[in-house]
């Protein structure tokens, strides 16, 4: 349905503007070759460029967060009308530039500050993390699931919490051991953190770091793992169970089509905030595109039965598929952060019958029960 809309908008736009060209620019925080965050944004950029003949795209890699302003100046000088800033740290630079260039449209990924010509967008994984957690809980034999994490910020805390809720739904006694590496991209740190978790007895692994390191290290020892961001099944075909994948292209195409059609202008973006999840197709469950669960693990997941409050006695494989179906539905019949949920200090964070708002999800600092390890900024009340 969305594809039809985009096509219609694109045609309308073409009619309204004749053969006018739209130039869009991307600011990347890392190298395209990272096979993680920046790589995924670039895949999205190329998708958009291929979809729209009227679109011209340019990009700059390795833009330091403190110097985004001058790179934006350069882009504007080159005639760029839409700028995508793809790192949280660009936030203030984007808002300042938006004042300097009131006729340019800005879109800032993962941010929360908007302006008449600044929109924000995010493809979030928390639903997918819950499903991966269910599988991890079913697969751990030691009851210890390892998680290698980049920075202790709300985004990762939300993901680890969703993951842990999944783990505990499949295996109420299991724990999730967390190790922080304080870097988005550092293969050596990710490797040593994984080795440390292995030494602590973890036997299933998930992570947030921009390389396939954790998957490779776990596979060396024969342990299952979950891929992150880019498809990593090919790095360990027998050991990657599933994972989280992103489709930034879906957001870029939607956004640019609306700009071209004149729906988005530099004056009406104050409330434009993409928070796209499974229903919009911005994220996907899988070890590779189109492989939600590695068939090699189907047997072990079907052998693990749990007693589920909605579905009763059900095996984990079917449970993942059913909940996946529910969360893909725009009605959102299921959400991982469905109360009652207590944090690991025993404080009730989500009351019975309630869910969290987007703002609460975006500012989450507490840790759910079952998370073991340091948790900077953990609230005491």
């Amino acid at each position: 349905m969305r594809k039809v809309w985009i096509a219609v908008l694109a045609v309308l736009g073409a009619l309204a503007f004749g053969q006018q060209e739209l130039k869009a620019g991307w600011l990347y925080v890392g190298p395209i070759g990272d096979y993680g965050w920046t790589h995924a944004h670039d895949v999205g950029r190329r998708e958009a460029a291929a979809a729209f003949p009227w679109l011209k795209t340019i990009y700059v890699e390795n833009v330091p967060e403190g110097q985004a302003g001058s790179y934006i100046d350069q882009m504007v000088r080159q005639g760029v009308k839409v700028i995508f800033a793809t790192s949280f740290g660009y936030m203030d630079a984007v808002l300042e530039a938006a004042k300097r260039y009131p006729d340019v449209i800005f879109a800032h990924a993962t941010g929360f500050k908007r302006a008449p010509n600044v929109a924000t967008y995010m493809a979030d994984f928390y639903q997918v993390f819950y499903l991966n957690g269910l599988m991890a809980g079913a697969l751990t034999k030691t009851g210890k699931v390892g998680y290698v994490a980049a920075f202790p910020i709300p985004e990762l805390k939300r993901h680890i919490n969703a993951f842990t809720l999944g783990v505990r739904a499949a295996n109420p006694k299991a724990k999730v051991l967390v190790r922080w590496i304080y870097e988005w991209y550092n293969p050596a740190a990710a490797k040593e953190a994984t080795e440390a978790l292995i030494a602590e007895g973890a036997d299933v692994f998930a992570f947030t770091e921009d390389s396939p390191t954790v998957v490779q290290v776990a596979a060396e020892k024969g342990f299952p793992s979950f891929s992150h961001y880019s498809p990593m099944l090919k790095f360990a075909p027998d050991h990657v169970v599933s994972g989280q994948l992103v489709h930034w292209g879906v957001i870029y195409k939607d956004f640019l089509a609306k700009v071209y059609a004149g729906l988005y202008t530099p004056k009406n973006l104050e409330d434009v905030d993409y928070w796209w999840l499974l229903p919009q197709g911005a994220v996907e469950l899988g070890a590779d595109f189109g492989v939600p669960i590695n068939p090699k693990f189907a047997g072990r997941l079907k052998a693990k039965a749990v007693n589920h409050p909605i579905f009763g006695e059900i095996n984990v494989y079917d449970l993942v598929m059913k909940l996946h179906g529910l969360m893909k539905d725009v009605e959102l019949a299921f959400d991982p952060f469905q109360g009652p949920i207590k944090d690991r200090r025993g404080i009730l964070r989500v009351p019975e019958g309630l869910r969290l708002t987007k703002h609460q999800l975006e500012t989450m600092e507490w840790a759910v029960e079952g998370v073991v390890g340091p948790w900077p900024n953990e609230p005491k009340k």
Partner: protein
Amino acid sequence: MVEDWLVATLARGLAFAAPLLFAALGELVAERSGVINLGVEGMMILGALMAFVVADASASPWLGVLAAAGVGALAALLHAFFAVTLRANQYVSGLALTMVGLGLSGLFGRAYAGKPLAHPLPKWDVPLLKELPWIGPGVFEGQSALLYLGLLLALGLSVFLHQTRPGIHLRSVGENPAAADALGVNVYLVRYLAVVFGGAMAGVAGAYLSVAYRPSWTEGMTAGMGWIALAIVIFAAWEPLRAVLAAFLFGAFYHLAYRFQGVLPPEFLKMTPYLFTILFLVLSALGKSVRLGAPEALGRPYVRGER
């Protein structure tokens, strides 16, 4: 429990030390000849990419390691030309090499990002020695053969520097090139050879990362290890065997930083490898006749007839 910790710390410390050791030993030789090369990071990453590309194409990881040594040596040759022949500022030339290396490898490596390596360097268990208690599983099991080569290289270099005539020539060139020249040592040749050797070893260090430690290519995968290797040369007071100790300590504390995360604040643990490595080496040097100074002529181009 204690055994687990000890074995894991030994094993992880050494595995992490291997690339640092190669890069540090290479740089140590270059610096002993009086030439500082800040291009270690750049030569390392060129080596990492070259090793991956060749290992991927030829299905032979060892050929990859060899090619990495070659590309590292070639890059170092460029530095030697600037630093020795043109007598340019060595710091600037080295930094330029790092930037060029990072840039070039990013550009040419794009096609290889996200590609698994079918034939990585195999792990090698040392027969008999692996049966030893504690040391066996910690040191002689599950490590890459490159690690043992690195340890042997350190031993060999230590003997070379202190016991052989060419080794003494090398040192004299780094301490007092005019005197060495007067004695008939070809200062330029020795410096060229030392710098090129350093580059080859930095290339091997990069190869270890991309075909053994984590068999794949990603841009910027050396992630600052070249700079740590440069620091290790200083911590080690330009002695090969102390470089082994320094690299191992760094690796061991790097591992322990993740083991202790449950107990101590991670922000503090993040700096412990640097802190404890320096502390330990300084303490171990106290009261002994370990010279802590750099080679006299380090960083100074040699001009014949000038003093």
